[in-house]
């Protein structure tokens, strides 16, 4: 599964064209990049912070930094990889400053979840038990489990499981080897399995 965004925007301009125009000072081109990458980057940052307000603020800072740094973007990697790297680094720095304080604020959940087979399986399996699973409880448990992971492990789980990136892409974004990515994922999955065992039995 690869959920990398298409390299063209809604009006047909490729990332390469938009970046080139933005580097020449075309702010509308940069706006198009912002519009295109906001949903993905929101998901990335939110899954690492579990807080809507922090996510929105941080995302503003991320795009502002990307805009300021755009002249130094040489195109050695894709814009997608470049802005993901900025996002991950800034979010990790934010989390280090925030420390252990975590206030989870839940996002809305798309109604499409009701048709997801996994969701149906989880909620169906829970019927007849003392506790029924609803969306918000599931969401809360998933967020709490993610927040129990270390920042590095949470990052790889977000990028791989939630965002659907490949090991090679994650390794490029984080600046670590693919082996390190696989190792962190293994450990994180094992931890999550312990935290959420009542949902996976």
């Amino acid at each position, binding site marked *: 599964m690869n959920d990398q965004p298409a390299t063209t925007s809604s009006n047909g301009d490729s990332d390469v064209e938009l970046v080139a125009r933005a580097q*020449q000072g075309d702010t509308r081109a940069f706006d198009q990049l912002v519009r295109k990458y906001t949903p993905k980057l929101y998901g990335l940052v939110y899954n690492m912070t579990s807080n809507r307000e922090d996510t929105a603020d941080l995302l503003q800072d991320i*795009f502002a930094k990307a805009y300021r740094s755009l002249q130094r973007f040489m195109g050695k990697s894709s814009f997608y990889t470049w802005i993901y790297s900025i996002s991950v680094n800034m979010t990790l720095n934010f989390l280090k400053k925030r420390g252990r304080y975590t206030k989870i604020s839940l996002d809305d959940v*798309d109604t499409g979840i009701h048709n997801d087979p996994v969701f149906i399986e989880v909620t169906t399996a829970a019927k007849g038990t003392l506790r029924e699973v609803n969306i918000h409880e599931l969401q809360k448990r998933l967020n709490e489990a993610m927040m129990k992971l270390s920042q590095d492990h949470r990052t790889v789980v977000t990028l791989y499981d939630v965002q659907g990136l490949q090991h090679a892409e994650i390794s490029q974004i984080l600046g670590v080897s693919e082996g390190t990515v696989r190792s962190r994922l293994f450990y994180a999955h094992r931890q999550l399995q312990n935290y*959420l065992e009542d949902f996976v039995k």
Partner: protein
Amino acid sequence: MDEFEKIQKLIRLKKYESPGEEFVDEFVSKFRERQREEMLKQPVLTLFWEQVKMYFSESPGQKWALATAAIAVLALGAWLMVPHGDGGAGFAGRGAQGMPVTVSFATDSTGKSLQAFSVETIRIMGVIDVEEDPGLLSKHFTGGYEQFVIVPQEKSGSSIAVPYEFVDFGSKPDIR
């Protein structure tokens, strides 16, 4: 089956979390507003330099030629405005030369006040400690010099030029 496949499927449900449909539009608007505010906070010189860079990024050859010509004209103008030479005022002084100064003049013994010299024609040849050696101010008149002694007034902070002597053109006054 991968031992972690179930947990991975569960975690993937998080992709349904979404900030809402209006979020992206509002976010882009807020971002634009923030960029405008940051731009306005930048120093004027920084903004000017960015505009210059953008200007030269398009058709650089022709624009560089125009810019070079503009700089040359400005430099010539600046050079023409700077006073050159000492106008024959003649003698070297101590301290800074060419310092503009506004000087008021003492009155002579009949009470007649002396005409103030314009800044362009006066140059302080040297400001020296008043106790030891008063500063010397000279103005070159056709046919002769007029020398004045600059006496700094401590209380007012200004200086008073007191006529020292009238010297014929060409003769070198004794300068201390």
